[in-house]
């Protein structure tokens, strides 16, 4: 928790400072060279960019604490007037990304768990080798390319799924699949390695010596132990999923915060960037705290207060 707070503050500060280190400023970028110096100055004053960086930082923090992340520079209802509140903008887009990430994780588990377990049960078999090759291929193909292939096949050739957008329930399938591939490669590998390791352990040997049914040995004795490393890896790799979503959202025109982030960075839309990235960090931190809590539930050795 403490580490999470430190990290979050660190991110806020880092983003705030770095984005201001670049020579090009938002006013110039936004007006695309078509404004007089006076107009530019007025914009900077409107956005508070004329103040010192320390002052700006405290104003930013103070506003953030009150739930006000400022107004967007690039998205304006009326030209020259204060822009759309960033908070609304981001909250509008956040559910789409969350939804995409969730579906992608579910897809990854559906791909990785059964295959990984099967491979582990028959180590060094043909099946095992095929699964390992599949994992390597999934890990090697960039998400944007697998996305393009999916699009080519399912949308352009078979015409059964939309090429992008957020209109129908089916539209999540292709982006989530594209996003899930590299993630499932990681899960597949971990599932297979961990299950194989656990199946070789002595407690599995003694479970077999007790005459337990094999489904119980695999699903209760082994899988429960394998869930621990699996969860760890899901937590650690969740950041990759967020990063991947930037690419996938761009490719599939998915209205999430990934696309918004790239646009805003390029447009030097400070308030948006200053909210989106810390928010992503927050999401990452929350996922990992959840994982830690689940650990306690899964692994009794991590619970405190042992009696022995």
């Amino acid at each position: 928790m403490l580490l999470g707070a430190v990290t979050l503050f660190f991110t806020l500060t880092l983003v705030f400072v770095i984005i201001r280190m670049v020579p090009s400023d938002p006013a110039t970028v936004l007006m695309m060279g078509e404004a007089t110096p006076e107009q530019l100055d007025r914009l900077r004053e409107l956005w508070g960019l004329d103040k010192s960086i320390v002052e700006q930082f405290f104003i930013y923090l103070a506003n953030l604490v009150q739930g006000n992340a400022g107004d967007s520079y690039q998205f304006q209802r009326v030209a020259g007037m204060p822009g759309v509140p960033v908070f609304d903008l981001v909250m509008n887009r956040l559910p789409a990304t969350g939804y995409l990430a969730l579906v992608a994780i579910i897809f990854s588990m559906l791909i990785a768990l059964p295959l990984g377990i099967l491979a582990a049960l028959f180590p060094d078999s043909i099946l095992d080798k095929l699964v390992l090759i599949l994992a390597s291929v999934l890990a090697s193909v960039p998400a944007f390319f697998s996305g393009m292939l999916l699009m080519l096949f399912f949308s352009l050739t078979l015409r059964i799924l939309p090429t992008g957008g957020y209109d129908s329930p089916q539209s999540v399938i292709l982006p989530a699949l594209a996003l899930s591939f590299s993630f499932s490669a990681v899960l597949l590998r971990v599932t297979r390695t961990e299950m194989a390791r656990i199946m070789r352990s002595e407690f599995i040997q003694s479970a077999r010596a007790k005459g337990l049914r094999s489904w119980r040995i695999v699903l209760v004795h082994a899988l429960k132990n394998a869930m621990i490393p699996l969860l760890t890896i899901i937590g650690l790799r969740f950041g990759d999923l967020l990063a991947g979503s930037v690419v996938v959202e761009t490719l599939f025109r998915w209205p999430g915060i990934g696309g918004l982030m790239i646009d805003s960075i390029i447009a030097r839309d400070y308030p948006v960037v200053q909210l989106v990235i810390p928010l992503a960090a927050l999401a990452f931190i929350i996922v990992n705290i959840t994982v830690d809590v689940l650990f306690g539930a899964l692994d009794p050795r991590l619970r405190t207060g042992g009696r022995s």
Partner: protein
Amino acid sequence: MTEQATMPPSATASLLSRVRRTWSRRGMPRVITGATVLIVMSILCFFSAWLTPHPPNAVDLSARLQPPVFAGGTFNHILGTDELGRDILSRVMVGGRTSMAIGALAVVVSLTIGSTLGLLAGYFGRRLDAVVTMLSEIQLALPSMLIIFFFLAVIGPNIVTIAIVLALADWVLYARMVRARTLVEKTREYVDAARVLGVSTSRLLLRHLWPNVFPTIMVLAMVSLGGVILSESALSFLGLGVQRPWPSWGRMVADGQSRLQAAWWIAVSPAFCIAMVVFSANLLGDGLPPDLEGRVMSHIKQTISATAQSVPLLDIRGLRTEFRSDHGTVRVLNDVSLSVSSGEVLGLVGESGSGKSVTALSLLGLVPRPGRVTQGQVLLNGRDLMTMDERALSDLRGREVGLVLQDAMTAMNPVLTIGQQICETLRRHLGLGRAQARRRAIDLLDRVGIPDPGRRVDDYPHQFSGGMRQRAMIAMALSCEPKLLIADEPTTALDVTIQAQVLDLLSSLKEEMGMSLIMITHDLGIIAGLADRVAVMYAGNIVETGPVRQVFKAPAHPYTQGLLASIPSITDTTKSDLQAITGLPPDLAALPQGCAFAPRCPQRQRRCETDRPHLIHHDAQSAAACWLVDPPSDRAANSTSQTTEPMRNR
């Protein structure tokens, strides 16, 4: 740039030559394939200035959108052309230069920074360790790729900034792995030995720790090389990568996106290159042994730590178990015949690798892969277990035969409570309900001497002390009151005073339940105190078997004689030399043609080196596999009556 980019493969090659001897050949094809592809692609890309068939930016509108040669194009443009008629092969080669240079540079930078910090933090600990750990925790708590996107968009991408930013994201992985590895290596005794010799700290770090830590990060380096190249291509795809005019692979895929249907080859060629490089790097990483000694040793140990059996309750005939590996077949059990009567305690003795644990696992059908029972019969109450299918066998395991292993900490599932692990056996075999099973489990725990069993039944194994855990393990094995209990070194991990308690428990439970017991151990003292009969194993064979008193007082086989003479006795007051058996325990993969013990045998004769002796009864109760042992007629008359009777009605 060129040297750095080709470094990973060549470092790998030198590593390979060093470890080849200790390492299974299994990883070799992967390493060769991965390294070859990486080297060839590096050469093609880095020397692209001289190798490209066409200038990469030469526009030729007369040759627009030509397909690759294998899709009906010409050899002039092997991979086809794009919408401006530019040669795709040439562009891919030039584009690869950027991607691969960034990959190599980023790996070198992050590896250097990360492993140096990790080594120092792991070795010195304290404040430096706290700082490095804190930094890495913060960085790991960030979605680093997102931050990288942001960084690069702001700073302005070029080869060096991209490489450095990507390196900054990866140093943590090296630092953590090297730190963890160093912490482990630091506790190994060779480090203590070096310190006791007075080796200086810098020499300790460079000569002792680093060479042992380094191989593990080679795997990581390969995997992260792939990761860096993927990240770079994603950046390029988003327009945040290296700017034109140099095409990079990611950028080329993005450019080809709009013509995916009409001219798929524009996007596919560079995408295929990305996938190839990443795939080969991962392949190379996979093929490298992650932990050289660890892997080899654990394999050997596993092979060795598997054994046991016995009776007319149990009758084992000619059991043979083999382990097949790339290196050939190892016969772990050669020809094991044993029997255990009802209520009898059979002691199975032998040194490591003699096959005693494998005997136990073989008879239960639990030999770990790649081991296999290749011949023999195991008759339990007259039924042959070897002909049973897995389902019938599993009905029998835990029900009629119980197994207690050496280390209850690893033999019990750490995430299930003691109670759950006892109950599942009861429910499986006796069909008890949840509440019934629980009551029975508490009874059992009480019976093996666990205080406050009603409360402790819900404890997890790690909450028990070593001795208590072993008692719980015994309770579990006995839960269905099996007719036969196999105890494989059940007290070896325990302290002497606790060992005595557990042995007492085992022998009183045996009396109470009237079961048979196979006691597998290397400790002759335990056998002397507990067993009715003994079987001595050597190199996968039973070399001698007989009533305990006879075997101890008048061992027939030279190995048994040597074993008994070589252990110091607490009652022995002389300080003369022990009668050690000379030579080394046998290598199962290279057994001599004749008697396996012949090379160490002081009474060896010519025949021993050519013919393998079989287990032959020299009286009604005893048998030995040795050419020197007299045939039955000579000895049977005077020895059987005295030696076996007292054993039966003890």
